[in-house]
């Protein structure tokens, strides 16, 4: 089993708050596959800094509003 990532995220919550944006739509907006968005939401994959900023940009929030450190 893969080690769980210490990075938490609110991607799913933000996606649902933005008019039930689909995973496919978010994937297209940040330039990755839908499977990668699923992996990010499940905490199985930590995106690159560039993708993290792209996600934050899509939701018009700061990176720290999307991603956090487990335990903080």
């Amino acid at each position, binding site marked *: 089993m893969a080690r769980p990532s210490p990075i938490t995220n609110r991607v799913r919550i933000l996606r649902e708050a933005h008019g039930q944006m689909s995973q496919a739509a978010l994937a297209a907006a940040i330039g990755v596959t839908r499977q990668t968005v699923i992996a990010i939401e499940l905490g*199985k994959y930590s995106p690159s800094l560039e993708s993290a900023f792209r996600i934050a940009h899509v939701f018009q929030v700061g990176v720290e509003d999307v991603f956090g450190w487990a335990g903080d």
Partner: protein
Amino acid sequence: MTVFFRVDVAASVFAILAGSYHLSVFAGWIGSVPVGALDLFWRLGWSVAAVVVLTVLFAIGVAAFERDGPARDEREVQLEFRATRNMGMVYAFGLITLLWNAFRLADPMQLAHAVIAILVLAELVRLGSLAVYLRRAI
């Protein structure tokens, strides 16, 4: 999955099939064993050409269906990197094994097919690694 990733996997599968065919022929399970270097190289040349043509046709087919997808995906790049690293380890161990046994092998045809076996094994490990990493989502 991106078109690149699908085509990459398909190319591996075609290469494994081609290599397995040559090994099966050498084992005497199908067809006739090549007689001499020229015969073997012609057969290898044809199978490499077949792998290239099949991969190109597959790429055209997949690209026609997946026009809107991203060209590259950062997670898939990582998957491919790790799988290729595992393949490199198989190549390294394969070369060491080949060197170790080079003078024990009876004829050059055995040596040539040992190389093909290493290529097939390395591609199998790469494909298996991709499947495992894809499932683990890293």
